[in-house]
């Protein structure tokens, strides 16, 4: 990760930004004109982009709640944190276990400042923020702050939500996940969600083109390709499914179907 000097400008408003586009889909207010334009363009091709983002967000809520309720894991490593949206991961984790510790990782300094300002831990637990790029996983696993915040000899829930479709194969994403999971103790969990063209192939080439023309690298993956990220891990029921069907605990959003969501989501245990 480049060391940003005080005068370096981290904001390029000539290009859209993935996290801010996601904020737009989630009805947030932390995006600029350029992000809104690109996101609106995606919506003309894929009109359910908001349903997709919100359903995925709900999966993050449920998966985190499940970990907090059904396991002894009280440590979370969230990579690709994005712009804060209530409730945030640490709020869910700390709801019943205020002592939970969370490390948030994102490669964008603006996103990270938002996280630091608005995602503060309960007094009993801790949150820490690391600026690092998942494409260089070593910069995460060797970060001093990670080791000062989490005890890696004990289980951790690693969440890679809606992240790896921004990591094309050229960056060796399977090796990245293997490296990250490899750092964690047995009893750890991987929470992962990923865009897929499986349910509705037709719009995806065009959607990816919008992102790519904005300078955002992307790659969607089939079920078989997403399954590979879980290699060696034991799925929690119901396995790898649309986030809609991952332990639903309420009514789905109106209009939410496998095709309108176009995501895979799963939680798995490292034995």
């Amino acid at each position: 990760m480049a060391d940003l000097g005080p005068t370096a400008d981290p904001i390029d408003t000539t290009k859209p930004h993935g996290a801010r586009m996601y904020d737009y889909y989630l009805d947030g207010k932390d995006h600029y004109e350029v992000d809104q334009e690109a996101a609106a363009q995606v919506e003309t091709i894929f009109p359910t982009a908001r349903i997709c983002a919100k359903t995925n967000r709900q999966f993050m809520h449920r998966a985190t709640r499940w970990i907090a309720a059904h396991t002894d894991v009280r440590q979370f490593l969230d990579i690709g944190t994005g712009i804060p949206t209530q409730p945030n991961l640490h709020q869910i984790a700390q709801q019943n276990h205020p002592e939970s510790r969370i490390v948030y990782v994102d490669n964008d300094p603006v996103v990270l400042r938002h996280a630091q300002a608005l995602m503060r831990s309960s007094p009993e637990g801790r949150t820490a923020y690391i600026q690092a790029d998942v494409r260089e996983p070593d910069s995460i696993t060797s970060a001093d702050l990670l080791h000062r915040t989490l005890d890696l000899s004990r289980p951790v829930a690693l969440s890679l939500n809606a992240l790896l479709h921004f990591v094309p194969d050229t960056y060796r994403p399977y090796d990245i996940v293997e490296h990250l999971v490899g750092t964690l103790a047995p009893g750890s969990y991987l929470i992962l969600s990923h865009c897929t063209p499986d349910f509705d192939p037709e719009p995806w080439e065009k959607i990816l083109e919008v992102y790519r023309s904005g300078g955002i690298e992307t790659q969607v993956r089939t079920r078989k390709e997403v399954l590979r990220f879980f290699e060696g891990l034991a799925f929690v029921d119901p396995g790898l499914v649309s986030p809609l069907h991952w332990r639903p605990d309420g009514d789905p959003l109106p209009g939410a179907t496998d095709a309108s969501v176009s995501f895979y989501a799963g939680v798995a245990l490292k034995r």
Partner: protein
Amino acid sequence: MSEAKSGTAPTVLRIVLSKRLGALRKRAGVTFDAAAEAIDVTPVTIRRMEKAEVGLKIPYVRQLLGLYDVPAGEIEEFIELARTANRPGWWHDYRDALPDWFSVYVSLEDEATLIRTYEPHYVPGLLQTEEYARAVLRAGLGRGADGELERRVALRLKRQELLEKPGAPALWALVEEAVLCRPVGGREVMRGQIERLFQASTMTNVTLQLLPFEVGPHIGAFGPFSLFRFPMPELPDIVYTESISGASYQDQRPYVAAHLEALDRLSTQAKTVEETRKILEDARKDRI
């Protein structure tokens, strides 16, 4: 919203209801003229009601909602909310010490869930000690009456209760390092103020970042401004900017987005929360 002139600060709830009133009119396909004719006012009055520039007169609201085919139950809910919205806020008791243009600010601050502010010259009002506030306000008032000065100090301290109340908003302040160097009220006052800033920087709902001199020229340097965000999703962020003679409140998206971008940019140029705390700690030691 634009320039604040009227003496009655709209509460955020009134702004929301005003916007909703406009949305219901559009949904019903009723023009300004038709709505005005139905309740025997000018179209300008309808327009001003929908912009929260005037209070929501209950009989008018009732008639308009009927005209817009809103179900009876929903009308009553709306009326109940409008009554609440028309009630004066706590700051009404301080109206003698509150310039009209600033009462809007207090009302926004009171209901915001997030306040992001950039302060080039002074410690943000919500984080000032009593003595510091007195010195700053005295400079602003010139040789005004002491009575007025004390009322303004009292108002400022009253506003600060906001940060301690349940459901307190998040305050994210970007403050120029110069503020620590500008002597306000003398050595003792500054020492107390720096102590207070350090203490605030440890609060979970306060994020304080100092902008060091070494940043050089930057996008914020025109003057202080604040951005307010509210819990109601339909309510846009509102940006406040001030000048010697008054203030402006804007909620148009491009305007808001430009200020959002400036705040984001400044937040990455500023010292981090931890670095800021360290600077304050050192400053505190230097002054003992």
